[in-house]
């Protein structure tokens, strides 16, 4: 009960701060749109081939955009030393972690919703596979990015070059999930096969990394 209440408290605070500053959402949206448009000019978006590469472009754009949001999320706790107040509070660190992951998930999901129509227009996309499977892959893939990103963002928070450290740590760790997201999305867009195995991979990846992050986050938060 306490965990749920504290989780809501953290989530509400993060959403309120983002609503007022729009730091993460603006940078993410701008970055994702930029990548989508630049790739649209680099490739011939009308060709059949675009359906094969669209999944990769979409997820790479979102991965880079997510990094921007994740750096903002923890930087906000460093301003005015707020992190020390959070470390001293006798509340569950896992509630803080889950609140931040959920807030980041919502920010990235919002950007996905805004970028998707632009993406469809620029790449002349017509989804041949199942729409609900695409939605499931989007949810699982986004969770994979934000759960790892939030955890490693906390890990690199006190390093001098944290904005460089986060992608350096996050990209290799995210590779299996990224592979799953891209392959599943491509399968759905082309309608060639049902990406059951990739969805299973993403589900297992999400569960493992969520559990491991929850087990380790208290030590990360308590570190000097």
């Amino acid at each position, binding site marked *: 009960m*306490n965990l749920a*209440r*504290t989780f809501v*408290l953290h989530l509400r*605070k993060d959403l*309120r*701060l983002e609503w*007022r*500053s729009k730091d993460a959402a603006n940078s993410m949206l701008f970055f994702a749109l930029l990548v989508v448009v630049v790739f649209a000019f680099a490739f011939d978006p009308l060709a059949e081939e675009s359906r094969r590469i669209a999944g990769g472009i979409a997820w790479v754009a979102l991965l880079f955009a997510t990094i921007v949001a994740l750096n903002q999320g923890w930087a*906000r706790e460093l*301003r*005015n*030393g*707020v992190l*020390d*107040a*959070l*470390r*001293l*509070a*006798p*509340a569950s660190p896992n509630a803080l972690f889950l609140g931040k992951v959920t807030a980041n998930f919502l920010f990235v999901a919002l950007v996905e919703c805004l970028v998707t129509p632009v993406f469809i227009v620029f790449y002349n996309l017509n989804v041949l596979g199942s729409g609900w499977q695409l939605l499931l892959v989007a949810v699982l893939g986004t969770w994979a990015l934000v759960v790892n990103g939030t955890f490693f963002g906390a890990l690199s928070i006190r390093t001098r070059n944290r904005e460089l450290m986060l992608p350096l740590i996050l990209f290799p760790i995210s590779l299996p999930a990224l592979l799953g997201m891209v392959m599943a999305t491509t399968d759905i867009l082309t309608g060639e096969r049902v990406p059951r195995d990739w969805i299973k991979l993403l589900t297992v990846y999400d569960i493992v990394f969520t559990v491991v992050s929850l087990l380790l986050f208290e030590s990360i938060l*308590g570190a*000097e």
Partner: protein
Amino acid sequence: MSEPRLNPQTQNSHSQPAVELQAVSKLFDRFAALHDVNATLIRGRLYALLGENGAGKTTLLRIIAGLSRPTRGSVRVLGADNPRDVSGRMGYMAHSTLLYDDLTARENLEYFGGLYQDRKILSSEEARDLVGLNNVDVRRRVSEYSQGMKQRLALARALLASPELLLLDEPFSNVDANSISAMALLLGRLRDEGTTVLVITHQLDALAGVADEWITLRSGSIVARSNSLSESASMRSDG
């Protein structure tokens, strides 16, 4: 500033000291920020911690709060060997405000108060009353406050859970003279109610007549402990 309300949480005074430091040293690489510090702080007293910049005052405060671990030695706070186990019973105010600039005073106080669910928490109004911020526009964000108002709000945040041990790092910085007097009186009242208060300050006059003991740090070691400011000054100059 209005009269703070007596809180049963601070009335439950025990005979054991609030803080016991035994041979505490803190090294940053080869630099010793603290060197073999031994001290006992009795419950229900107000201590002023003095010393020049770099003497180790903030490091000592952070170790007592549990934000930093000593390289050597042991710390016992409110009967616990690990200060983090009793962090809910402590109030901590740092150099920085520990507040979100983009939230209002009420939102900040309600958020941080919500993190202390096992304690009796002051309401946002009660906390602001204590530090004389009852008349500010609650819709204003903290970023729009003056530095002195931010300091008082930071003190209100530290007082939210009616702490048994209050650790304050230069609470009077950038605060006007009237507010300093009111804050010092408030600290005196909290001490009278049973709260142990440890205050780092360079504004010695602010705590004259309120502090029970003056502790002076120099180069990471305690060089003087005295019950009066004048005696403390002569001990510091002798040392």
